[in-house]
Structures are given as C-alpha cells and as structure tokens.
C-alpha cells in the first residue's frame, strides 16, 4: 500500500452553534489526486483549511507527511512549508513582484539566501510558464497568471502535498485552461493533491478519487467514473444531475 501523505480522521468543526464538519475522514496517498465536490456550505473548504490548520479543528486528528498537525509541540510554521495551498482569490501580495511573492517564504522560512531564493523562485515561475513575468506586480497580471504565480509560490517550497481551494472559481472562463494546465503538469510530476473544485471535466480526466460532501459529511467517494456515472447515494445523484445540466 502506498504511503499516506495526508491522514485526517474524525474531523469535527464547530463555528459557534454551527456544526460545519461532522466527523470527516480523508486520506491521501503519495502521488494521488483527490477531488472534493459538493454544494456550497458543505464544508469542503473548511476541511481543506483544517489540514494546514488555517482553521482549527474542534476535534479529530490530522497527520501530514508523518507530522501530527494538532500536536501542540509541532512547529506549525515548519510543517506548513510541506503543505502548499492555493486560494480561490489568489491572495498574492500586491506590493511585491511575482518573483517577490514566490521568494518571500523561501528567504524568511526556508532560510535561503537572496540569490538562492531568486534562483528557486525563477525556476518555480518557469514551471508555471511565467518566467518572463518575474518582475511584474500582481496588478499587471491577468487572473490566470496571478493564480499561476500563487501556485509557483507554493511549489517553490517543495511541498509534499498541494491543497487547491476552488482555484479557478474566480477566473474568467478563457483563463481557466491555463491554470488547469499547470495543475495537470503538477499531477504528472507526481505531486499529491487535494482539489476542491467544480471543474468536472478536469476531475474526470485527472482525479484518482472523487469525494462528495454534503452538510459537513462525506456522502460518497470513489473513482470519477463511478461517482459521475453511477452514483449510489440519492444525494450524490441529485448533485451530479444538477451540475451536469449546466
């Protein structure tokens, strides 16, 4: 059995009286790509954010690359370098160039010299096809380019797993392809990935497993062909039916 990179068990999350995650288990093996789908408010993003503790799980356990993320003795800042995250709204630093965005953590967290960080940063920008945009600020880049810089910022730290939180939802349709292209390349390089997204075409082609969530719990999971073609649960059927009509 391949090594598990992410092992989340029994995750609960409460926001006040709201019970957002109701005991979710999610595992991810090396080189695996898991797609998480579900209606808005089903807890997909919260689950993702519990994995690197941007959100504090109320209970449960999260192990990433052998590190217990919920152990108070864990150096969270060190552990987070191993978990790349890409956000719906890019969240690039507007006061820095593309290269500056990519190299900040390389210098401040990974302790690289400026020269070394620049070299690694340029290599990461090269991987997302933006080597020629290194000096541009986010405001000078299209949405698709910004998201690719955000991906470069994450992969420059050589993470063991990448978390994508609706990476293409804020993009104009004609820009989605370039971001999915970069994600496909990453996938082919063997990166373990968890993707929260509604890009069903991409899910069908690239995902090893699709997880369907509703109301804070996993309803059904399986290979894309099964989830999209012959879903077992009524709730899944209804959701798949709805998104395929659009």
């Amino acid at each position, binding site marked *: 059995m391949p090594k598990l990179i992410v092992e989340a068990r029994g995750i609960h999350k409460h926001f006040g009286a709201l019970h957002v995650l109701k005991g979710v288990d999610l595992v991810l093996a090396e080189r695996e790509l898991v797609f998480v789908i579900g209606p808005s408010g089903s807890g997909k993003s919260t689950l993702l954010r519990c994995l690197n503790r*941007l959100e504090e799980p109320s209970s449960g356990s999260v192990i990433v690359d052998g590190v217990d993320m919920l152990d108070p003795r864990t150096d969270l800042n060190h552990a987070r370098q191993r978990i790349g*995250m890409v956000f719906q709204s890019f*969240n*690039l630093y507007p006061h820095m160039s593309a290269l500056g965005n990519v190299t*900040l953590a390389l210098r401040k*967290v990974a302790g690289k010299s400026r020269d070394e960080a620049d070299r690694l940063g340029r290599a990461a920008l090269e991987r997302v096809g933006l080597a020629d945009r290194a000096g541009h600020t986010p405001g000078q880049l299209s949405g698709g380019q910004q998201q690719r810089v955000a991906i470069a*910022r994450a992969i420059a730290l050589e993470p063991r797993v990448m978390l994508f939180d609706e990476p293409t939802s804020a993009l104009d349709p004609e820009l989605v392809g370039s971001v999915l292209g970069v994600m496909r390349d990453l996938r082919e390089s063997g990166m373990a990935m968890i993707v929260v997204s509604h890009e069903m075409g991409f899910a069908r082609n690239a995902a090893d497993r699709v997880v369907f969530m509703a109301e804070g719990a996993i309803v059904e999971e399986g290979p894309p062909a099964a989830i999209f073609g012959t879903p077992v649960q009524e709730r899944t059927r209804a959701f798949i039916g709805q998104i395929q009509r659009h």
Partner: protein
Amino acid sequence: MSNWDRFVETFFNAKIMAKYLPDIAYGMLVTVELAALVIVTGIALGLALALLRSLGFRPVNWLIIFVVDLFRALPPLVIIVFIYFALPAVDVAPSGFVSTWLSLMLVLTAFSEEIFWAGITSIPRGQWEAARSTGLSYGQTLVSVVLPQALRLTIPPLTNRTIAITKGTALGTVVAVSEILGMASSAVSNSYNPSPLTLGAGAYLILFFPMVVFGRWLETRMAWKH
C-alpha cells in the same frame, strides 16, 4: 494716510518686522524642535500600540481602546494645562515645553494608533492566510506582508492628522513656551503693533506648507496598481 497705508503700517510694518525677526526665528526653532519630538514619539507610540493591539490580548486591548478614546476626546489645551498645573502637586514639575510635548504626543499617539489599527485591519484576511500557509510566522507576516500594505493606506489620514496636531504647538503659548506664537504675542505687546503676528503666520506657513506638500507627494508615490 489712506486706509491701505494704515493697514500696511499696522500689519506689515517693515521696521517692526525687522526688529522682531530674530525672535520669530528663535520661535520657529522651538516650534520645529517641539513638532519633531511630537511627531516622532507620537507616531512611534501609536504604531507600537497598534501592533500590541493586533496581538489580541483582550484586557490589554480594552485598556488601549480606553486610553486612545480618552486622548481623542480631550481637547489638547486641557491636557497641556492639566500636565503643567496639576502634576507639580505630586512633585513632578514639567516645563511648559515638556508639558506641551507630552500632551500633543499623547493626542497624536491616540489618533495614529486608530489610523494604524484601521490600516492593519483593512488588509484582507486572505493576505494573512496566504503568508501563514507558506510557513511565515505571525510576526513575519505582519512585518513583510501586512504592514507594508497597511502603512501605504495610513499615509493620507496620518499626514492630515499629524499636521493638525503639530499645529497645536501654538497652544504651548499658554504655558509660556517660546514657540512662534508665544514669541509673536510678546513682540506684539512690546511693540504695540500686530506686525510680528504676520511674521508668525509666515513662519507657520514656511514650516507647515512643505509638510502638506510632502504628504501629497508620499500619497502619490506610495500608490500601487491593484
């Protein structure tokens, strides 16, 4: 003598102006010293309080908010008079200069803390999250990501507020600080002619006009394209 001549004689009397020019120049020096002290200490303390507040210790924050609101509510003149006349009762006797400095510093601290705080809280949560997700610590995120953006936003209101409060150095005249207005007033009493006041107004313009222009320049320079 025409009205015009009388006006010039009263407010632009060259002889009297020449006589009191050294006094006004000395007053300018005192005003500059006082203003520089107020600006540097007030803004530094304001920023320090805003950073302390961002750590989110509730009792500390309540205290900060109380103190800030107190000094935003009190007229600066009241604080000056209080420090100058009340503190000697507990055996601390600050000079008029120190009383004015401390008072205006406290007021600028209060206002600049609010401005810095507004700047820090206006930076979207996603900026914090992106930085923290790459392993940056709270402090590193604050220094490298949040503050550079927040400070740009604070420059216009901070400049306005700083100019407004620094002009309050003129209040020092009630506690015998020999700054521009103080020097001008005594020159008026001694010469029975208000021309030194005109000179004083000129001195204030020379000092504060460049500050206004500098603020405007900073504002455009700090802008970046989103």
